[in-house]
């Protein structure tokens, strides 16, 4: 045994590996460990970042429609334009005719709404950019949420303060589940659905709302996936 070890010890290793290689090796090992950790952690973090979820990024629309002006200044109710939110799965974007209801009177010659006039004239739809887009395998239904006391602001944020509409929340499955597990805190009276500012006066009010709507915690898959 000895002889063996000794002969190895006499070998010309010093020439081969100067002392700094020890440090190099240690550093390399640490870097390796760090790389492996990073490879796992990075995507997990990334998936939650705004530029992965698309949150907070206003899109350029064919018409620079300003919700601040229409909602805050003119106090037009959400449902006036997004009327299907109460009736169907999609809140809907108003037909050009609906816009023209007002804009045939005011700003009717503005260059900004030229695409709108064109659409009414030709019947060609305006190609709006979709801001809140869920995957195709997610079946979200506006009507049930609106009718059961979930307000616009809960998911869409303070649209009344947006020049160009952007997505506020992650709109990821965990985000949906946060509410689906316990909807009660998010409930509001039916007549306050479109309010951007309403908050419950007291826990008692929330309790009363829960009592009224009897919300269910629906977390099974086919609630949203079909």
């Amino acid at each position, binding site marked *: 045994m000895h002889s063996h070890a000794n002969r190895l010890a006499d070998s010309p290793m010093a020439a081969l590996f100067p002392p700094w290689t020890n440090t190099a090796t240690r550093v390399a090992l640490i870097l390796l460990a760090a790389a492996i950790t990073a490879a796992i952690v990075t995507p997990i973090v990334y998936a939650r970042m705004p530029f992965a979820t698309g949150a907070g990024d206003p899109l350029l629309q064919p018409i620079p429609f300003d919700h601040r002006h229409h909602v805050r200044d003119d106090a037009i109710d959400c449902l006036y334009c997004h009327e299907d939110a109460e009736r169907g*799965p999609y809140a809907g974007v108003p*037909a*050009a005719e609906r816009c023209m209801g007002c804009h045939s009177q005011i700003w009717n010659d503005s260059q900004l709404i030229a695409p709108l006039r064109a659409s009414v004239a030709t019947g060609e739809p305006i190609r709006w950019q979709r801001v809140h887009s*869920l995957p195709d*395998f997610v079946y979200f239904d506006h009507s049930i949420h609106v009718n059961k006391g979930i307000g616009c602001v809960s998911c869409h944020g303070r649209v009344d303060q947006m020049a160009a509409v952007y997505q506020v929340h992650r709109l990821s499955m965990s985000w949906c589940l946060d509410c689906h597990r316990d909807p009660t805190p998010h409930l509001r009276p039916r007549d306050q659905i479109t309010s951007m500012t309403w908050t419950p006066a007291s826990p008692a009010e929330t309790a009363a709302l829960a009592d009224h709507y009897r919300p269910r915690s629906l977390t099974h898959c*086919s609630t949203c*996936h*079909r």
Partner: protein
Amino acid sequence: MNDASEPPDSSLPAPGLDRLSRRAFFRLAGAGAAAAGLAACSSRPARNILPYASQPPEVTPGVPLHYATALVEDGFATGVLVASHQGRPTKIEGNPDHPASLGATRARDQAAVLSLYDPQRARSITDRGAPAAWSAIEQLLAGARAHGGRGLHLVLEPTSSPLVIDLIERIRTALPAARLAFWAPFAPRAQLAGNRLALGRALQTQLDLRTADVVVALDADLVGDHPMALAYARQIADRRRVVDTSSPMSRLYMVESGYSPTGVIADHRLRVRPSEVERIARALLAAVIAQGGRGAPAELGAALARPAGEPREAALIAAMARDLTRAAGRCAVAAGDRQPPRVHAIAAAINAALGNLGRTVAFSEPAVFEAGQPSHDVAALADLVRAIDGGEVTALLVLGGNPAYAAPADLGLAAAIARAPASLYLGLYDNETARACRFVVPGLHDLEQWGAARGYDGTITPIQPLIEPLFGGRSVAAILHELLGDPPATDHARTQDAWARRLPGVDHAAALARGTVAGSALPAVAAEVAWSALAAAIAAPPAAAPALELAIAPHPFLHDGRHTNNPWLLELPEPATKLTWDNAAQLSPRTAAQLGVDTGDLLALTVGAAAAARTLDVPAVVVPGHADDAITLHAGFGRDGGERVARGIGADAFRLWTTAGGLSPAVTAARRAGHRELAITQVHWQLEDRPIALGGTLQQLRDDAALRDELARHRGPQPTLLDRFPAGFPTQHNQWAMSIDLTTCTGCSACVMACATENNTPVVGRGSVLNKREMHWLRIDRYLEGPSDDPVVVVQPMTCQHCENAPCEYVCPVEATTHSPDGLNEMTYNRCIGTRFCSNNCPYKVRRFNWFDYKHRDLHVLANNPDVTVRDRGVMEKCTYCVQRIRRAEIDARIADRPIGAHDVVTACQAACPAQAIAFGSITDPASSVSEQRRRPHSYAVLHDQGTAPRTRYLARIRNPGQLP
């Protein structure tokens, strides 16, 4: 080795939406939101929102609208309700108010939406294949108009439309010299001729089986292939449902060669060759008269020779006569249209002798214009050929149908049409006839046009378009108007105008809303059997049967070939053989052995002698229960037109159809070298003594405790360590369940097609079916019991059983298949990574896997249901109990703050079933039909011994055979 690695449905074409103008696409897809359903899981959603420029008030994006209209075949209308998503028809349901539908549909009705979006439809007017202008057509028609229409010949499909009839009559007066023929290969002719023999007038037989205790079908596939099949299936089923041990049950006798859906549910089935049916009919008439048939001259009975049939046949005839006589006035005898007029005459006579006339059997004027007249006969086509050869034809207009393909081959019609100096074809496809004609004008799909038609019973059914003509087609009426030189007008205006004139006082709008004109059924006409004339007509005994005979039958889904370009229907397993993407010579095991062939071996069928001999090579398929010395071959295949899906599939049975031989000619068959692997979806047909498709006779169910106990053993509680309902399930939810009645199920497969259309199940193509990769969530299992040459068939719809202890759920590594609190076995496609572990552990093998990317690529995507995810490659899929319909109903009920009603959720298969064999509902509601059916003495669970506790239960197959003397 197999060809599983061949690309999926390579047969399917792929000219994409590019061929369709963007504008048209927006019109179709409506609000971009609806496009959500079109894309597949895990692919990015549409990034644009396209609102209407002006939104129709009735439209709410995402909420389908339903419109009543009709699908017409051979002149007979079936009323349907069509679901439309923002102007995009996606789903067809039966119209409950329509007597020929009663809410049900046939498989081919379901598939009509795919034909609508067929990218291979004729798209533009052509002159010998080259693009042409409408003005050219106008010139042609103007020329045809000259000299009172001399030299003008028209070939139309049989029509019952008051509006078209109006035009035809105007043409008859305006252009007296014009010649009209009406042609559809399988239009019922023999029945009218037969009734002329028996009653002196070409009348249409109207059955009312609601009160029939005994039904004898002489080669008549009442529940499968009949213009009124949906109604008859319901009427027969209603008389055969077993609720408890005291339930009455009608008795059904079937005499046939092939194994039809009617044969499947029959209590007694006598398998004879088509030509032998007349012998049976005569013997039956004789026996009925002998047992004191009213009004029938006894000497007639004596005159009819007794059959020299084998004992079982004689016994069955005696039993039929006995049961019929006992149930005189409450029974019916029906003859199938493949049978010659004499058999129909005899059937009418038997009904008369039993006093059924005016009770279960009535007669009416034909619903179809001039039906039973010479203009509907083969002779009319023969005249046309002669006229063309005689140079008398200056203009030939073929409006609809496909006579160049679907007519007796020896007429040489295709060649004759091609020789006609000026010819025009109006139709959906660039088919054989289109290729023979000079001008081709794209026609309109039923869902694209205005019009009207009569149901078999005569009920007037308005037709309205669901969508703008996709390829700018023209209707038959439009051509006829042009021919008459009428001023231009829209089809809509013309329809309303003609409606007002032909049907004064009938509100068009109201009729459209309801889908029918109430009380417009044809009145029964008093008719008496002219016994002496009848006796004379049937005096001569039937000709001796040839050694081997052929029956050219309409395909249950493709009919006469008009649907052969529809991949959905091609891939739907043919009920008797489970054969897809092909037709084959069906023959009995004995005949197959004699010919030395087995399934897949090639046969050369020859009809006619020496010079006039016509030969066709077809693969054989052995069908236990088929009559010996007979071959059944389905029409509709071997297409040679421009339809790329249909081209070159199967063999053209019509090539063996001669004016002399008719549709049941004598044939000789010889083994040919070669073998064709047939895409048959079921390879093993025995039950192997396993508790799967249970059954017994009504007598046993009543008196035999053993059967009742046996059935009870297959539904009782099972010992298990796992959570079990109700423990595992919160009861404030509904608990969904299904019950399927094997007694009334005919195996017609309408449910399978309905499921596919509702749930976007893709077409996989022949190659994939060959390797057992078909995608149908619901399949119809077919089991044979008893002797192999004459077995009893049990059919069993098999789909996800939604087990309470689902074996598939605990093996999924990612919980892509889970259990919902309302008892559904959920399948979450977007979570599935495709280990296929669930399929391995499913005892029912009802899970389907996307082996390739099977998604629609072309215009067909528009047929997709936007409420169901289109599955991507590599994910598992299966029956969901139509969860999208359940959730919709749930949301509506919750918003309206009411519980879900008993009829709020109807699954696609349930809606389509003509026999109402499928019940669906919540078992927390003891009043629901499911709960009621689960309490019945013959309710049981398949593979109950596996402890899976399936939510789908079956009602055992109960038969009601009589004593054979």
